């Protein structure tokens, strides 16, 4: 079966790849492009560990085909920091101990960033409902919610 040729922007960089028709974006990122920061927790759209944005929209990369990305812009966790400068969400996650094992963290950060782009001043409840698709088994969510609220505050200060 012929592979699909895809040209996309990934974290701002032009990328070309070949993929099978059934390969998911998650598999392309991890297995073909060596961007293993995006994690597989379920591959069925239920855990959010594979969260990325496509043209600014938050999606599960395990439910998206690699072939669908042609001409689109994908942001993954690897593109969140600017050089060595961490995004305020990344800094607050570290300062407030919002990760234990850290496997949910890339997805949480990508999802939280998408929230703050839409709603720079969310309530605790809004953060909880926005992140309800991102499972964390370690933290009980306290410190993740606190870190997102703290980062939002920091970002509003500019």
């Amino acid at each position, binding site marked *: 079966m012929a592979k699909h040729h895809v040209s996309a922007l990934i974290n701002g960089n032009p990328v070309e790849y070949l993929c099978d028709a059934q390969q998911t974006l998650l598999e392309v990122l991890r297995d073909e492009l060596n961007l293993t920061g995006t994690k597989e927790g*379920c591959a069925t759209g239920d855990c959010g560990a594979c969260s990325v944005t496509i043209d600014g929209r938050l999606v599960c990369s395990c439910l998206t085909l690699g072939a669908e990305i042609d001409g689109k812009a994908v942001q993954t966790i690897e593109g969140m920091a600017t050089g060595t400068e961490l995004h305020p969400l990344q800094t607050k996650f570290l300062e407030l101990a919002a990760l234990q094992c850290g496997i949910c963290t890339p997805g949480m950060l990508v999802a939280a960033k998408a929230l703050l782009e839409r709603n720079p001043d969310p309530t605790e409840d809004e953060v909880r409902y926005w992140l309800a698709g991102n499972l964390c088994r370690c933290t009980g969510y*306290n410190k993740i919610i606190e870190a997102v609220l703290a980062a939002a505050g920091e970002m509003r200060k500019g």
Partner: protein
Amino acid sequence: MAETIVYPERELKVIGTRPVRPDGVPKVTGLAQYGADFNLPGMLWGKILRSPHAHARIGSIDTSKAQALPGVKAVITAADLPEQKFEYLGPERVAVNYWHMTRNILAREKALYEGHAIAAVAATSKAIAEEALKLIEVDYEVLPHVIDVDEAMQPDAPLLFEDMITRGVEPPPAKPSNVSKRIEYKLGDVAKGFAAADAVVEASYKTKPVHQGYIEPQACLARYDSDGQAEVWSSSQGHFVVRTFTSRLVGMKVADLRCHAAEIGGAFGGKTVVYVEPVAVVLSKKSGHPVKIMMSREEVFKATGPTSGASMTIRIGVMNDGRIVAAEGVFKYQAGAFPQSPVMNGCMCSFAPYDIPNVRTLGFDVVSNRPKTVAYRAPGSPISAFAAESTMDLAARKIGMDPIEFRLKNIARPGAKTVFGTTLNHAGFAETLQALKKHPGYTAPLGKNQGRGVAAGYWFNGGGESSATVHVNEDGTAVVAEGSPDIGGSRASIALMAAETLGIAYESVRPVIADTNSVGYTQATGGSRVTFATGMTVINACNKVIDEMCARAAKLWKVDRADVVWEDGHARPAGKRAGEFEPLSFKAIAAKRTATGGPISASASINAEGQAPGFSAQFCDVEVDPDTGYVKILRFVAAQDVGRAIHPAYCEGQIEGGVVQGIGWALNEEYIYDRDGHMENPGFLDYRIPVASDVPMIESILVEVPNPKHPYGVKGVAEANIVPPMAAVANAIESATGLRLTDLPMSPPKVLAALDSRR
């Protein structure tokens, strides 16, 4: 949201602060490497064929067609693993039997549960490997199966092992059964105790198996070289355990297998055993290529974990003044397809928080056609505590006593005897209950359909074998190489204790988890042992370094070693030479290493003892929706004796996480089977663990009653917190509705049925 209550104060510089963890940045940038994130040139993908039947005899396995598929480089079955001797090895509580273990890795005579591994392939792509699995022909003779523990104990139940004779019964029964073991503990005279009681309460309970639910499925990469040496990178709680089990199961020398601890994406006990590592090693050996295996979420649910479901009965006898005079518990735990459920822990922990003169606990370890159970956070204790602590609530109600007061009245204090024959020699239980009682929420008014429930919980906490090496660098920094995989921030607590001991800055200490060839043997990260035991060995190594630093200073000053002391991160002249020289800092001595004798490093290996038991006391407020049966958690307060909070944020994190897992266990989580013994909910959509919008902020109270047997007072923190929540929620539901629920999970349909039965 968190509060710390400190008992005796002690001057500490960095312990108790909340610095950023040393391994943090790669985890927020996506660069940290977990089990599935390793690749090697020429790597193949491994996949495992699993039984579609809950119970079946395996006739033949024909792999020829799979073998012939282009791109397939190896196909294996149990025939590729050496047979193992049938014997239980190690302490009874955690005994292993390799005859069982190898059969769980790849089935031999029978498939014992849906999802049981039958064969495995390695191919040049995932798609080809999957295609190859479909070409393997297995001849199954489907057998009757049994899932439920009470049914598995029936005399006519289908037998998983036709020759299994119950252990722990004298004389041994003549007939085989699914009961692998019977355990009994006794203290005092239970019959007399109940006879003297003013009131006796009794109830029976059931729980379902629940999965550890770590977000990272098991994954590994293995490379086997033609000289017989191999290397494994895997997500596990103990890379030394991976080495022990895998070398034994594959039949290789321990020194020939080098295991690396990948970053680990959660485990909670579920990654203390191996599933994919031996398979990947043998596939690599057969194919001559490195092999990577990643489990799918469905495989994780069907073939790893979970912990036991159980059937239990509890009796408690009380006096009108609140004293408990007798307690009895019968615990029947599902082990899954192979023996060794944590029922022994259940028997030991259920009444351990209390000083009761007459106690008897009886346990049964029962096999049935479901995945072999594995440790899950305080293995065994949360299950028996659900029954025991629910019955404690019934007893407090019966005599009209406040549930915290009732527990305080009976709380075990140092000197109290346990049913399993030990004497409690640590304080902390009463202090923890008192801290909980003082929380202002405990006396806050409740609204309509709302209720408040209290429960407590006990866990042993672990010590054991740990190793570490401390290397001093020329600029006065230090590297700590240790052997405990870090799941929740232990590198931070290790670095804090090393910095405190050496008297240098936290940022000057860099800990690493060294592979099995680079540091001494270290047991798995489990039993809440790492900060205690690995911490202790790191402190020992640091003390040896300090001794060496003093010797180097003596050399520089040309004085006797005995005339140098270490104070505040500096060597000082003392005794007859006191004040003769300016103190030398850690950094100054490190810089003179070459001139004073060469590299400065020290190792320590210990079998740590003196761990203190963990104790947690919690209350929660719930609201029960009378129309839907939905139970909303309004507030959850959890107090725990942490000994000394080395990094308080990670202590709070353990409590918050453990409580939320407990809430999932209480309200939602369960394995659901159809009549053919197939799991109906092997995914996160239908096996629903708590999400962010299900829970409030968990309010933790860190109670610090230091452990005198640890240099910094450490007690294990990770597990005791998951013991009370199920009973706390059930007790709160009774307080809200007047209904006693005895069946987990207390999901909306069950709560609604209970409400309806009363209407």
